[in-house]
């Protein structure tokens, strides 16, 4: 797992190579100019201030201005290149994570929705910041090199002292990197947990409000937030101890060099101007040293995020890759001896043109059947679609042939038209809306089909959402349609109209469409050709609704209430 985070980071560098290298070169030039400034200060003191030479002052101030100009321009263009690379990398990671989550073959992941949001936003950003850290590290190294060369030219022992002491200090400071990484990862995990909880509670706001549990929910969030705070403070303590050590060591290093130079100056080995350059350079070096010292912490943060990104993008796919493409004409669905969760050897055959009702004595059987057809995995026995095992059917094709509309329907931000005519198939839109009794929903809103739908359909009632979702399913005209309790939130009269609507739209003369409706609603069942009763995971009775109702007491109790 930790290796995959490293892979993400390496790829970020290679695939942004051009911008990163050009940007880094320019930022390096910028750093070299920065390092030249203390040298120039020393020169000005030596050549102009000490002898009181006005011409020299004018000349060297001019040189100073030139260096500033190069410095400004190299930063401006270098940093822009780097920012473009960072923003592009974060965007690409975000799209990759989203593509993985949305992958039609389904993903194995232990992330919660809130965590996934964090991975696709904060973690993608944090990972891309590596492209900021790299040029900063390079720039710091360039600055160190320029200063070291300057110091070597002034005095070899001074230059050597810098070159030897710097890596030594950095190595000493590296020791604490694993601890910092662990603390930072813990901090991020706790923050993610708090974000997940906030998302979960806000999602369940209506039920919370209904039982007056909002205070209790706020209190629960407080608990998790406090744990997140404790983790942040723990990480802060570790980082501040590290900062104390790194600041003290780098200041001592710079001061040590300055003191050594002062001794050289006192003994006449270097000039006063050179002494000032050494002090300025040593002082300037504190910054790049300090940066190099905090690099482990920054990279650790990027690494922890990259690990999480990798966990999302490397997650395995659930369904196998299928290639078969059975014909859409007269497509049939056949389950034989299927075992899946509570299903214990289920046989179900939906022939072309057939309208089949399924009544489950146990709710879990119905859920398992719907779940299996939506994502056929983890079952024994055979599931055939158009005569081909469903595992072998191309996933995109399989979803064209078999549409499963779950009971908890999801609508999206947009308009009513965009939610129903998802593939812009507006020709038979009116027909589908009428069959689902959703025309009334459109009529009650002044904007009609263009009525805005708020996030997750929150602006509509449960019954309205249900009918629009049904209209969407009918409009898609799949060869095999599976509906799960499509009318639980509509009244009895409307339900009856919907049953007739489905029958008329999908099972007219010569229709080859198959429809399965999993329900215990007598209005829907009465419209079917055949009803299959599930009990304890197997078929226990089969027949028309009328026959079963007449002959089977337990069936009557189950549906006729």
């Amino acid at each position, binding site marked *: 797992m930790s290796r995959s985070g490293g892979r993400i980071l390496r790829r970020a560098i290679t695939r942004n190579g051009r911008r990163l290298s050009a940007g880094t070169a320019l930022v390096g030039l910028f750093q070299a100019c920065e390092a030249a400034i*203390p040298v120039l*200060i020393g020169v*000005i003191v030596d050549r102009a*201030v000490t002898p*009181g030479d006005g011409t020299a002052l004018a000349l060297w101030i001019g040189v100073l*201005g030139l260096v500033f100009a190069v*410095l*400004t321009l190299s*930063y*401006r263009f270098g940093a822009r290149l780097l920012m*473009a690379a960072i*923003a592009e990398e974060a*965007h690409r990671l975000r*799209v990759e994570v989203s593509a993985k*989550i*949305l992958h039609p073959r389904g993903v194995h992941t232990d992330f919660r*929705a809130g965590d*996934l*949001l964090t991975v696709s*936003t904060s973690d993608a950003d944090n990972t891309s910041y590596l492209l900021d850290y790299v040029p900063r590290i390079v720039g710091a190294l360039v600055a160190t090199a320029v200063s070291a060369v300057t110091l070597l030219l002034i005095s070899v022992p001074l230059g050597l002292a810098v070159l030897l002491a710097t890596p030594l200090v950095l190595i000493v400071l590296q020791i604490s990197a694993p601890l910092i990484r662990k603390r930072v990862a813990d901090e991020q995990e706790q*923050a993610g947990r708090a974000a*997940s909880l*906030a998302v*979960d509670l806000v999602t*369940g*706001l209506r*039920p919370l409000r209904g*039982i007056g*549990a909002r205070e*209790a929910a706020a209190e629960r969030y*407080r608990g998790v*937030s406090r744990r997140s705070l404790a983790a*942040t*403070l723990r990480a*802060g303590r570790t*980082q501040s101890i590290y900062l*104390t050590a790194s600041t003290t060591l780098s200041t001592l290093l710079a*001061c040590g060099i300055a003191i050594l130079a*002062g001794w050289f100056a*006192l003994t006449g080995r270097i000039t006063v101007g050179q002494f000032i350059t050494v002090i300025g350079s040593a*002082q300037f070096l504190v910054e790049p040293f300090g940066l190099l010292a905090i690099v482990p912490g920054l990279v650790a943060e990027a690494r922890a995020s990259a690990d999480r990104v990798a966990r999302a993008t490397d997650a395995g796919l659930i369904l196998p890759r299928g290639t078969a493409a059975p014909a859409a004409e007269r497509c049939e669905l056949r389950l034989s001896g299927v075992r899946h969760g509570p299903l214990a050897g289920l046989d179900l055959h939906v022939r072309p043109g057939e309208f089949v009702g399924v*009544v489950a004595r146990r*709710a879990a059987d119905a*859920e398992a059947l719907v779940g299996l057809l*939506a994502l056929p995995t983890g079952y024994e026995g055979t599931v055939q679609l158009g005569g081909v095992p469903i595992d072998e059917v191309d996933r995109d094709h399989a979803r*064209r042939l078999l*549409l*499963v509309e779950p*009971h908890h329907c*999801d609508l999206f931000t947009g308009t009513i038209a965009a939610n129903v005519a998802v593939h812009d198939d507006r020709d038979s839109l009116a027909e589908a809306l009428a069959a689902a009794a959703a025309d009334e929903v459109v009529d009650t809103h002044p904007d009609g089909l263009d009525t805005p739908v*708020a*996030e997750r359909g929150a602006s509509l009632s449960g019954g*309205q959402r249900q009918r629009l979702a049904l209209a969407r399913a009918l409009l898609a005209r799949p060869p095999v349609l599976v509906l799960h*309790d499509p009318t639980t939130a509509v009244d009895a*009269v*409307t339900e009856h109209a919907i049953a007739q609507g489905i029958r008329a739209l999908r099972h007219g003369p010569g229709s080859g469409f198959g429809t399965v409706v999993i329900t215990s*609603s007598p209005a829907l069942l*009465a419209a079917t050709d055949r009803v299959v009763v599930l009990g304890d995971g197997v078929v226990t009775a089969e027949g028309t609704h009328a026959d079963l109702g007449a002959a089977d007491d337990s069936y009557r109790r*189950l549906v*006729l209430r």
Partner: protein
Amino acid sequence: MTARLPVATARQSWDWLRAEARDRRGEVAGTVAVGLLAAAASIVPVWALGLLVDRVRAGAGTSAIVGLILVIVVSALVGGGATGLSTYLGGRLGARMLADLRESTVATALRLPALVLDRAGRGDLLSRVGADIAAIGKAVSDVVPPLFSSVLLAVLSLAAMTGIDWRLGLAGAVAVPFYVAALRWYLPRSGPRYAQERAAVAERSQLLVESMQGLRTVHAYRLEDRHLRDVDGASARARDLTVNVFALLTRFGGRINRAEFFGLAALLTTGFLLVREGAVTVGETSAAALLFHRLFNPVAMLVFTFDEVQAAGASLARLVGVQRMPVEQRAGGRRPADSTLSLDEVGFSYDGVTPVLRDVSLRVAPGERVALVGSTGAGKTTAASIAAGLLRPGSGTARVGGVPVAELPAHTVAIVSQETHVFAGPLVEDLRLARPGADVADVEAALATVGAWEWVHALPDGLDTVVGEGGRDLTAAQAQQLALARLVLLDPAVAILDEATAEAGSAGARALEEAAAAALRGRTALVVAHRLTQAAAADRIVVLEHGSIVESGPHAELVAAGGRYARLWAAWESRTPTGADHP
């Protein structure tokens, strides 16, 4: 299209910050004191080295260095310790304020009136509790502590330069108007662009949340490519805005470099003139130049983290904006005389134009069970929401035992609506939301009442099984049973079920209806009934049509009366092919 949640003005955000700082006066003072110590300790070595320059020029012996070494080493040690400590203190102060901020934001979000949140959409709120809190968190841990120390260092350095010679201080201060001009050029340009960037990020979050939460539907309709395209588009827009804002920032950086150059040139020239006059020494000029040069990095850091500070400021405005929203207050509560639920001439309209309820009056006696019947859109859910206190009536009042529902003590009325949600975490904790601290025996009893104990007991970890998002999936009927068990655990005098047995349409119907009946036992109950069997079992039935009550009475009476309900019942019965007995 959707009304956005409010964003605080700059003044409101500052007010919040000031109030927070006032509440933590001691902590703030301690942090500033340690920060000043750190800044002062880092100035001392430069001053000491300036002194050394003059001693070198005066031809002093090597012994001149000894005292200075001591000063420098001590200040390095003190400075290092103080820097670490001030960073920790600053980070802690920020983290604590952030924790308070996110807690009160979430608490406010949870108390927002139902209508407000439905109009604004959850994505906006979720991006506030997610991305915005993260943005401030990053600013608090990465930006604020160095920013704080930079400001202190700049102030103390200028003071030290003035201390050497006031004219040197003045020369250094030449840079200040350039810095100010740069800021005045930058800020008005950057503000709107940051706002655009934030808005693009919010849109991106909303698309991500919807795609993830509606994944089954996205897959069923082969919409993954479109959703991905939308996410890609929104993310690309946010990316372009980010790059655009940054280009502006680099031009700002150029103006900062200009300020540095003019400041340094003025300082060196002034030093040159003062040395020629003999007013200051070469060492003092050198020390001043070095002090000034040393400010380059801290000030540049200040500038280049300005976008993060501003982004954090924008995020803060969005969080403070939520905090300042009016929330539903439930007063301490007046005790109701009894558990009679009454609606008196209640009227309601969502848009202020189309009435949803007109003069609805009804009374549910203590322990009575009344069913609300009517076609979709008749106003059943609205009436139930008003009775439960989720919506305020436009006219008229809803009372329990003579007390308006908004003034009742907590937990007098509860409603279980059609929207079920299984809260992520151990199952027992889901139920404890209804009664925090409830012991296991109570939880088990509540589950047993609604007939859920058997399957809960059979779960791998029983009550401790992790359910909901990221945990074990429960069926829709099981989720409904949990909702009813929460009601039992809460034990309100008045209970309202709004389509709470809608799942009775699916398998397990009988069990759920029995569970609902058990959960309502002994309570005053108002049931929004879609299944007429549910209505038939109630003590009394109220029929709503187009927002008005058209019929009211016991089942047998209404059937005999041959009105609207009788017709509904006939339609219901006709669905039964064998004309089975009434339940």
